[in-house]
């Protein structure tokens, strides 16, 4: 037991691609990954909500994280996936990503905590930068992504 305490905690992240950058999503939030499918549009809602999908009998909203982060509109390809994340409230929301690359295990000492607001609206969703060998992964904090919806609406 004591030996274990010395080593750093490790967290597994799913690495997804958005544009040219790689982002990591804490695997404990990920409920499911599904292929791109028909999304039913909902008129007159927040612009980042692309609509809803049917996930085994449940109606799940799908959010474009690109729009949330002020990136260019999603380009749907064969690699496009919807990551279904389960928030602490138990609510499930889908996020559109360009592709899913791999699952990495990062120990806490390789994660650089970051909380400053570098580029407006972007860094605020990021809890830190993970170093996986030479590659850098921006770690998305799901609670941040879906917490500031009020601000988002007023903007």
């Amino acid at each position: 037991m004591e030996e274990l305490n010395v080593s750093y905690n490790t967290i597994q992240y799913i690495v997804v691609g958005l544009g040219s950058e790689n982002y990591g999503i804490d695997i404990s939030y990920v409920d499911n990954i599904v292929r791109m499918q028909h999304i039913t549009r909902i008129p007159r809602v927040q612009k980042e909500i692309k609509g809803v999908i049917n996930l085994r009998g449940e109606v799940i909203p799908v959010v474009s994280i690109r729009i949330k982060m002020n990136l260019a509109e999603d380009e749907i390809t064969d690699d496009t996936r919807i990551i279904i994340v389960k928030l602490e409230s138990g609510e499930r929301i889908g996020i559109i990503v360009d592709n899913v690359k791999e699952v990495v295990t990062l120990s806490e000492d390789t994660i650089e905590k970051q909380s400053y607001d570098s580029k407006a609206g972007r860094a605020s969703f990021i809890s830190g930068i993970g170093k996986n060998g030479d590659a850098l992964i921006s770690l998305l904090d799901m609670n941040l992504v879906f917490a500031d919806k009020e601000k988002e609406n007023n903007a």
Partner: protein
Amino acid sequence: MDVSQYLEIFLDETKEHLQSLSDQLMILEQEPENMDVINEIFRAAHSMKGMAGTMGYKNMQNLTHDMENVFSEVRNGSIKVDGSMVDVLFQVLDALEEYTDNIQNTSDEGDNENEHLIKALNDILNGEKAEPAPAPAAAEATEAAETAAAETADASSEKAKFKTIPLGESEKTVLSEALAQGKKVYGMTVCVSENCILKAARAFLVFKALEEHGEIIVSAPSTQDIEDEKFENDFSLVFVSDSAMDAVQKAVLSVSEIEDCVIDNMQIEAPKAEGSVKEEKTEVVQAASNAPKADKMASSAPAKQDKKPVGKPVANRTVRVDIEKLDVLMNLVSELIIAKNSLVTSSNLDGGVNEHIEYLESVTTNLHESVMKVRMVPIESVVAKFPKMVRDLSKKLDKKMQLFMSGEETELDRTVVDEIGDPLMHLLRNSADHGLESAEVRKERGKPEVGSIFLDAYQDGNNVVIEVRDDGNGIDVDAVRRKAIDRGTITEEQAENMDDKDIINLLFLPSFSTAKQVTDVSGRGVGLDVVKSKIESLSGEVEVKSQLGVGSCWTIRLPLTLAIIQALMVVVGGEKYAISLGSIQTIEDVNPSDLKLVENREVINLRGSVIPIVRLSEHLDIASTKGPEDNLTVVIAKKGDKLAGLVVDELIGQQEIVIKSLSKYIKKSKLISGATILGDGEIALIVDANALI
């Protein structure tokens, strides 16, 4: 383990008793001599006292205790019931309700001792009685009589039941060791009062009291069974202690509602197993056969045993089911319906299976209905408190009024029933305060002095209608109109164009109150708008009809079920949408040349009525697939008696749909009320036609 696990039972039972007290007091006011009612009140007060005592709620216990005392005298005939006494009793009831609310919210009864009420009760006791005996003596007498009754029931042989506890080898060793150490081994049989509600809690308190004195070695029935309340009115223990026998006995008897504790030194020898079992059985039989006899003999508790089956059967026939479990069941049924729909879709391609599908359809429909029925509860649970409320209002407002209710047995979905109480209360208060005139005015107008308020509930097709009527003044439309203009809610010109109905609907706007005087009953302008929004959140609607000088009638219309509805499926701009069939009146094919413009809005003239046209495609931000020359498919939707024509591109047909709520994360517009999953797995949004009218 502590008493908190009984809190829920305690609250449930206390509320039941409070309701029954309230009902009975209403009757008592009319029939002060009715012995059945007096007995019922006595019993309810007695049970509540016992339960409050068990749970350690001292203030509540004291208050119910004094109430019980008063009724014990009423039963003996030494006090007569009169109006002032009933008033005091209603105040006591309010105080008890307050305790209960406090307990529910904070698990603490609060420290209001309500001394004035206790004093008032004692005044009743002392003032009216022939010989000024202090109250506790009377109560003691009653209790003594009860104990006597119980004692008659207990055949003397049964009292020492502990002698028949079979002891195992290991237990005998423990007991021998204890004796060798100079400890004392007692056997005891503890009798719990027959009227005790929380027997297990009592037993637990006995155990706790005993633990201070020593150790319980064996119990019959087992501790588990005692905790689960699997015992009659007594249980037996073998107990090792250093304390003297009296001290132990006293400790047990200090727990309230413990009637008796027979204790003796335990003889440790092998009991004749067979004989003892047999003995026990006969004792039980004896006890059972003795009980009713004893009760008839006991003059202090004449109706106790006979009455219980009359009051209780409802509780025995119903099962309390966690609403979450029902939700799961409901979801399963929903899925079954989705599965059925997909079968229906695939069968269109392949004939022959239709028969089976029809069968499946009837099964799912029946299943749906029965699950819905499980969720249905009579509105009685909500409206039962209203007679007392109206009585209180009558005193407070100093107006004479009476409430007539019908259709209390009408059933609604549990979730709706839970929500409907407040709006109904608002409407009743509104009628009592604004509607009914004072007695003098009523007399002048040739109406009976006592105003009448009616609450009628009935089922009407797939809806439940609840009407609140009064024979009061009705709504003064001109007063409302003036007020609205004064407040700047509407302009003079607007006012002129509005008919009476539109004006009355202004009452539902937030913070609009016409009460000339703000009373603490109503008139603060928070009421009718709350009523309206609450009812609408339940997918219902509220309407009011009123005639000046004659009265008003508020009509609430609620859907029977919320989860599954019949809907019309339509296509707009290539997307599928569902419109609840409940809000659809007809479907019309309209030639574009029939469209007229009134105030720059499109309308059609349909069989004499002018109906505004709403192009759904515009509201849904999508381009219609129809050309401007094509005939329009218009779905005529109604809300109350207002109509609107919704223009769609295509009709698909009628379908039973399961409503799925949209995630809270989606900030949807009012137009979309939810979503549903179609047979092919596709999602269709549900359009709330009411939001467009």
